[in-house]
């Protein structure tokens, strides 16, 4: 992608992603409520929440946690910026990992038992989904011969034809990434977590708002990857990304939380069967 277009894409991403991400979150809560037979909050509720959090007084255990949360937000934004600028997909994944590690050590730094367990579980979650994420990138390279998001998006044939196993595997680990049941073991958007609020237990006010906004950015990035599977037709891509998200909401509301052993085990088995299977098929073809 040319320099100017990439710059415009990055600016659009930085400005629009939180809006889109927040709206998705609002719709998510509305649909979830309806599935549970409730009326649900207004679609704009996530924005109201974040604005209110921003206005709250800032209570912290130590100042380092503020710093780490800031780094988390910054690197999640960089992840998406690399992606939407059409940059290297592997680099984007590595930046995402760096961001996630900052959230974990933010929780560790507070020396709080609940945050600590949340952090440990968050690491388990990363360990669970990471192989499938890397295999997704590997699969995309095998088809398109490029790691560049731009080249992958411009590929003349929908990737889903060659990568059905990888797509399903990726959708599976999206449940973990979106923090949906049955795999929301490190923190949950629902008010029923056995470890208080897990990773974010000790964050309040501005920090909590930053974590929330970072998740919006992250979700837009993840849905961007889903779109890559159908990139040859943007309309279909967006429709299918929306359907995928709806599926995740559906799964969320129909499952209770599983133990970490199940999260790790099932995610790795899925990566081995669907991910590696798909790659082996491509390699032998």
């Amino acid at each position: 992608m040319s320099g100017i277009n990439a710059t415009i894409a990055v600016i659009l991403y930085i400005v629009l992603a939180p809006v889109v991400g927040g709206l998705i979150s609002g719709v998510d809560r509305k649909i979830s409520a309806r599935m549970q037979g409730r009326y649900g909050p207004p679609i704009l509720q996530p924005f109201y929440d974040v604005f209110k959090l921003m206005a709250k007084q800032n209570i912290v255990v130590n100042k380092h946690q503020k710093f780490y949360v800031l780094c988390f937000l910054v690197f999640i934004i960089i992840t998406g910026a690399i992606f939407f600028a059409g940059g290297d997909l592997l680099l984007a994944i590595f930046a995402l990992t760096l961001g996630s590690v900052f959230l974990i050590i933010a929780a560790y730094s507070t020396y709080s038992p609940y945050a600590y367990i949340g952090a440990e579980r968050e690491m388990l979650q990363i360990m669970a989904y990471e192989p499938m994420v890397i295999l997704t990138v590997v699969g995309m390279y095998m088809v398109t011969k490029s790691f560049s998001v731009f080249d992958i998006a411009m590929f003349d044939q929908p990737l889903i034809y060659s990568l059905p196993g990888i797509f399903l595997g990726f959708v599976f680990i999206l449940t973990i990434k979106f923090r949906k049941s049955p795999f929301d073991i490190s923190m949950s958007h629902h008010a029923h977590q056995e470890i208080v609020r897990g990773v974010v237990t000790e964050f309040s006010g501005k920090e909590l708002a930053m974590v929330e906004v970072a998740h919006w950015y992250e979700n837009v990035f993840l849905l961007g990857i889903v779109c890559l599977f159908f990139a040859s037709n943007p309309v279909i891509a967006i429709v299918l990304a929306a359907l995928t998200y709806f599926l995740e909401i559906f799964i969320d509301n129909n499952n209770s939380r599983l133990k970490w052993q199940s999260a790790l085990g099932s995610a790795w088995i899925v990566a081995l069967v669907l991910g590696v299977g798909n790659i082996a098929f491509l390699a032998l073809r």
Partner: protein
Amino acid sequence: MNTVLFLILYPVIVALLLLILPQLAIRKFIVGASTAILTVASIYLMIDYFNTGAVFFEFGTHTLNLGILFIEVALAAIIVYISVKHKQFLAALLMLTGAIMTIWFEVTHGNQIHATHNLFVDNLSLIMTLIIGIIGGLIALFAVGYMEEYHKHHPNVKNRVPFFFFIVFAFLGAMYGLVFANNLMWLFFFWEITTFCSFFLIGYSRDEIAIKNAFKALKMNLLGGLAFSAAIIYLFTNANTVELNQLPNLASTVVLLPAALLAFAGISKAAQMPFSSWLLGAMVAPTPVSALLHSSTMVKAGVYLIIRLSPVFAFVEGGATVGLFVAMVGAVTFLLASFMAISQMDAKRVLAYSTIANLGLIVVCAGIGTYELVWAAIMLVIFHAIAKSLLFLSVGTVENNVGDRIIESMDGLITKMPKVAIGMVIGIAGMFLAPFGMLISKWAALEGLVSANPILTVFVAFGSAATLFFWTKWLGKIIMIKEKPADFVAKIPVTEQFTLTALAVMTIGVCLLFPLISKYSLEPFIQAIYGHAYMLDQSNVAILLIMMGIILVLPLRLMTYGELNYRPQYLAGSNSSEKEKFYGSLGLTRDVTMKSFYLENIFGEDKLFKLGVVSSIVLIIIMFGVGI
């Protein structure tokens, strides 16, 4: 040429000096000065041969070869004597077999053997030179202060510090010889010396377990040495050459088996499965020894040899299949060692498994041997050497201050020993996070593997996930903000402070400078062998450097926070009035303590190690099958 000879011989002279001059002040001076001299000489050599490509030297006479043989036989006799004295008959037998093979070969073929070029310098040797000189030297410097503390903490261990430094510097000299040798017989000579040096260093404390582990390392490396020796004899009798640079030009019928044998020697020295246990056992030695074995010497010699073989795997017909099985051994090692690191509580064991895993990744790259992967392999060698020595030495410093090296004891290290902790954070980040070094090379490795052999990326994908887990949980322990115990005072010798600071700065420095290292050192080297070089994508390099800049600048924000509203952490509403304490049952006040996940049931050593040994032996047997 003279600098090359100087670098090989000077450490030996220093070693002898340190042996006969046992005074601490003199030792401090000699080690400090020698570190500086080796650093300067290594840099001078680099400047001298910077743009020359590979340069070969016709140095050496028949008398010199006989001298080498004499030393080899003498050392072998010493090793056999020590082995018999400790009733280690297998070690004695291996050594004896090796010595007989060498002598027989020299007696029967000695007059015909003619190597045109015994020594050479190219960019890979130069990179290794810098690693050996700078990092090896810094570790020696660290050891001066450390060994004094070590003997205070271990009163039962007999003080043999002069001997210790004798071996350390002899080791460095042998490493220099190893990376400059083009004559395989000379390479083998230095190769065996590194085996003996590590044997003496591991057994330094002379207690039961140290002796047992020293012999374990000796046996495994002597086995690798036998393969090396067999490779030389086979090469000479079938192809009439003993020169390293000739290997890729030979016919596949004569070169594949020696290549497999040499790779086997490399695998044993680089502590790959099934030989990983010797490196784990080597932990009993004082920490600077571990740092030395893991970063700048010993295991790096193993991967160095395999990297030297990669053109054989890449160009010789049928070489790719042998290389594939070498790579598979590396892949299995990378995966399983990364898994097992999760279940380890001892910081040095975590580091050891991480070394084994990273060497595995280097072996994967060198085994496949495409130009991209050779780039990744050499970059891994560089980054790993610096970050790993920093981590080992930091753990050593922590151990001398905290009393043990269990990761669980490192809670809140950042408040107890802030500078050492920051160094460790840099080292850990350097091992697995973007935009730091190891990740850059892992990235290149992934890119190279996807086009060469996609199935191998599966090992990298799962192994990397485990890597992330064990490093992050350690990182989290270190950066916890916890009240510092009132009576805790950290005492760190000046030599240790200097080394740790230098290594931390270098860890960041190479991450900022790696595009230059690549452009001026690696790319010409790979260009010369493969005809085209791995070019980093400029925009990606820019993004990495921007990320690095952000990471270096963001901490300034910590200073600008001003007054904050502090509250103790949430303890389910039963916080006591003291910090980090809560009211437990029966009204008792209890400390907050937290323990990490080690997932023994899944990633425990028992099963995984056996799995690794069995599968790697099978792979090695197939490798030899293909070689024949």
